[in-house]
């Protein structure tokens, strides 16, 4: 009898990982879209403690005549049809920054956008905390995501990065332990980007700033925190897009089923 056959097969993904993955995916999508509604209320970003219409915004979405634009510093990019000036589903011209298909609710309502955002913020934050605790406890983080010393070598990181452009390598490695880029990506999202979203979100709260004055000091002011909140949201969206491309390239059906049922794999990645 081959030795492998008597070792009970472990699922590739822990139950905690699977539950959190889908809850988190839903929360992040809703919070991104309701967040864009909130952004539409004041589509300008500043650095520092204060910032309003008369102050210099490093980023602004606006509309002049029939043109929508995005301004980054001194650079102005025309975005008609997408940002600042677009047609809604009934063909009416709207001048909100982000279009209705990208926001929750699809018609502008700051009050409703805030309700969605804060309700799912609670689920997201509690979920993240529980996932972190459980994944330290079941050693998912130590075993599967921990970067070993030799994995930090630039040559190793570069090789792993290049492997992500080769479909054959992507397909072959789908059941293997997480590679260096995957580890960096997941660790970066779980321990840097997601906590950063929570902390910058709290820094925008006047009550939390009174409770925890270090928040504002940490980010260099409420408006800086708002900018970082927005930039981090886009970093997460970038992660999401790469993640989706990798799932599509490595066998979308198999990968999705594995994230639902647990799947099985030869590697220690779970």
């Amino acid at each position, binding site marked *: 009898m081959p030795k492998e056959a008597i070792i009970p097969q472990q699922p590739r993904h822990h139950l905690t990982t699977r539950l959190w993955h889908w809850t988190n995916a839903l929360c992040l*999508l*809703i919070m991104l*879209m309701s967040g864009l509604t*909130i*952004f539409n*209320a*004041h589509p*300008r970003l500043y650095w520092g*403690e*204060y*910032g*309003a*219409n*008369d*102050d210099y915004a490093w980023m602004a979405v606006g509309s002049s005549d029939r043109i929508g634009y995005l301004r980054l510093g001194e650079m102005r990019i025309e975005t008609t049809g997408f940002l600042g000036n677009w047609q809604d589903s009934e063909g009416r011209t709207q001048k909100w920054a982000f279009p*209705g*298909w990208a926001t*929750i*609710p*699809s*018609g502008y*309502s*700051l*009050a*409703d956008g*805030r*309700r*969605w955002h*804060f*309700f799912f*913020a*609670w689920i997201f934050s509690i979920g993240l905390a529980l996932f972190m605790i459980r994944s330290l406890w079941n050693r998912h983080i130590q075993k599967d995501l921990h970067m070993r010393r030799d994995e930090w070598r630039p040559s190793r990181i570069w090789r792993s990065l290049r492997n992500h452009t080769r479909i054959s390598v992507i397909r072959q490695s789908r059941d293997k332990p997480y590679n260096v880029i995957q580890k960096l990506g997941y660790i970066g999202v779980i321990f840097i980007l997601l906590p950063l979203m929570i902390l910058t979100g*709290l820094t*925008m*709260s*006047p*009550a*939390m*700033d*009174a*409770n*925890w*004055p270090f928040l*504002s000091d940490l980010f260099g002011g*409420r*408006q800086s925190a*708002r900018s970082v909140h927005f930039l981090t949201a886009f970093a997460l969206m970038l992660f999401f897009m790469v993640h989706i491309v990798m799932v599509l390239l490595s066998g*979308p059906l198999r990968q999705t089923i594995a994230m639902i049922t647990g799947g099985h794999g030869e590697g220690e990645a779970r």
Partner: protein
Amino acid sequence: MTILTRRKLISSAAIGAGSLLTGCDALNRNPTFQNMLASAESGNFAVQRALGDRMQLASEYNIADLSPSFRANGTRDPGTSEYAASAAQGFADWQLRLTGLFSKPRHFSLAALQSLPQRTQITRHDCVEGWSAIGQWTGVPVKILLDVAGLRDSARFLVFHCADQLGGRPYYESIDLLDAYHPQTILAHRLNGEALPVANGAPLRLRVERQLGYKQAKYITGIEAVASLAGIGEGKGGYWQDVANYEWYAGI
């Protein structure tokens, strides 16, 4: 075959995104779902009150930190003839009426308010829309008014009545007694060392520094002490709470 599945995939993704949006809009109109979303307010309120000292001060800043110009929002001029007449004489006839659950309900002129002990604070104003402005406010602590007029034990909230209207409804706001007795909760009559401008709420506006801008009622004509918010406006505690789904507790 591959083309077919890819096309299928893309179109089902588009249908998925579309139905997600319609689904969200339908949920957004559902009262039960709205109540569920609104329940987060209780969590924010309880946790934000519990995390700090209940009388924790909001950060105060220096003159060097002031916004070059302090943005005005909402009503920029109440626009009534009475208001214009009062403004023309420097609000010398302005009356602040303390009504409701006070043992000694009374009126204050602007001069009478200015003769009481004053507090000056440089704080950050955070609008619900996302922008912030730092300004220096001078005014009388609300606590002093409550002590002078003898707030009754049955009072639970203060309602601030205003001279301005939005969409034909009078603006009003309310706070609970914890915020009312907070040292930084003042009725301000000066901004950045000058008489409060009309656009910023002359002659009196509320500063309740641990909450968002829509709580900072302007053009204040009266403070009503009540046991419940049920009988005021539509009973939700403020203009924006009545007309849209803004939360009464605006700590975030």
